């Protein structure tokens, strides 16, 4: 599903080159739930940004679902985000002026799909436990509810991979466990491939496998 070879990413900050990734190699199988752990500045987020098509790699090979991200144009990476990757963020990143339902609907609209009554997605709404909160705006939802809406939005277009960047970083223990349980459920029931960045070893324990990063490399 994901095959990363000798991936590097260098940012130019003024006249200084910052080597965020220094040759990352990683393989993730379809249906796998992988945690990426590591201290701040280790390159976890950069790896996610490249896998999610938010920024291009400097060198190396990145294949997702058979498509090589290296050399992709902006438009091709936009298309990748639309069709292949779903994001879950630490700060939920819901659009504040839209209701929960509209936040999910806009993801479908961007993908060029009409809102539908997909029975499987209806089941997911039940699984996430947010059906009764769909007409509320984010400010009327708790952190846990907002993150569940964000998960629903991330998977509404059936992405090949789900990238979760510290999904429980802003949640209390009870809501963290609920969200992690949901991710695990999605993985178990739907075979959703999930990559999750976390600082929390307890959160990492929900995944099938864990890799650690340090100084732009995978160290274990």
């Amino acid at each position, binding site marked *: 599903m994901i095959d990363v070879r000798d991936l590097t990413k260098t940012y130019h900050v003024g006249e200084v080159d910052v080597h965020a990734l220094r040759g990352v190699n990683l393989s993730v199988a379809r249906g796998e739930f992988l945690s990426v752990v590591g201290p701040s500045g280790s390159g976890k987020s950069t790896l996610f940004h490249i896998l999610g098509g938010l920024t291009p790699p400097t060198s190396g090979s990145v294949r997702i679902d058979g498509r090589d991200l290296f050399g992709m144009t902006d438009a091709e990476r936009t298309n990748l985000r*639309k069709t292949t990757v779903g*994001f879950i*963020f630490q700060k939920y*990143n819901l659009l504040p002026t839209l209701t929960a339902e509209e936040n999910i609907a806009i*993801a479908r609209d961007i*993908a060029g799909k009409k809102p539908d009554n997909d029975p499987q997605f209806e089941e997911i709404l039940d699984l996430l436990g947010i059906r009764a909160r769909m007409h509320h705006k984010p400010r009327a939802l708790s952190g846990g509810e907002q993150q569940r809406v964000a998960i629903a939005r991330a998977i509404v277009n059936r992405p090949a991979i789900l990238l979760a960047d510290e999904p429980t970083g802003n949640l209390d223990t009870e809501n963290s466990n609920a969200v992690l349980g949901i991710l695990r459920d999605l993985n178990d029931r739907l075979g959703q491939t999930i990559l999750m960045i976390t600082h929390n070893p307890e959160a990492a324990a929900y995944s099938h496998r864990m890799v650690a990063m340090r100084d732009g490399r995978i160290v274990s």
Partner: protein
Amino acid sequence: MRTLLSAIAIGVQVTMILTLVGVSEGMLGDVAQRSRGTGADVVIQPPNSTIIGFSGNMPEKIVSVVREQPHVAMATGVLVQPIGTVNTITGIHLDEFNAMSGGFTYLRGGPFKMPDEIIVDEVFARSRHIGVGSSINEGGQWRVAGVVVPGKLSRTFVDIQSLQERYSNTGFITAIYVKVDNPANIPAVIEELEQKLPTYKIHSMEELISLTSADNIPLLKQFTRVVIGLGVVIGFLVVFLSMYTAVLERTREIGILKALGASPGYILGILLRETVLLSITGSIAGILMTYGTRALMQVFVPTMTTSIVYAWWPYAALIALVGSLIGAIYPGLKAARQDAIEALAYD
């Protein structure tokens, strides 16, 4: 609040255009209506006159020549005397003018009898807060003898002989109004008069009224264009600032949309749709405000007749839309080109 203020600003722009057009159409319409009120079928003006402005003068004895023409039922000369900068006072032969126009309807007082007496219409009386017996200074002192229903040639009438003497214009008039025995004979009368008075401007009343349009007044046409240009600039600036601020405020939201796979075109489309909505709201507000400005003008400057020109509503809205869309282009492109990672990191 920002959106509301932007809509109001666009509304002011639309009101500005519609009020200008309304005033020009209203005043010209009023002139046309008052021209019809004379009851004349043909108007003769001196060679050096402008069609709408009633300038220049001609010998009064020409009236006798006109009266002798076949099918001419009656003819009367008037003197339109400029006073001050833009005002005029109209000298008439009261009996002849009454015979042609059907006569004045007096709301208060009666016809002038003395050389220093004046008849004014209701609009003029209201704008000056005057009544019968009031003394007014219109190129000299006049005493109001009567207040009449508006709609006949002018707003102020005095005895023509008195006016000619006061301005050393004895024996001269500005125009001759001609009544034809049968409307079917108007072309024949005009043709005859053109042969007798080859250099004079001779028009049927309907032709003269059709020439009374903003398009035939060069300065007004240019002024309207300037106001339209200003309207586009105002729309551009308002929407530019509004959308630029909106894009800055929504940097993070734009980042979220990009992370969801929104293309630059999708983001640009959202902003342009918002701009169109803003422009439509502003245009509706502007149209409604036009009724307000008309009501205010009726109170404070009743002599400036203002019309609601429905035909200009789509043009004013289109002008607002064009200015707004131009204003939305740069902020829209800035949003569309926003870097997703930087935008997501924005707080």
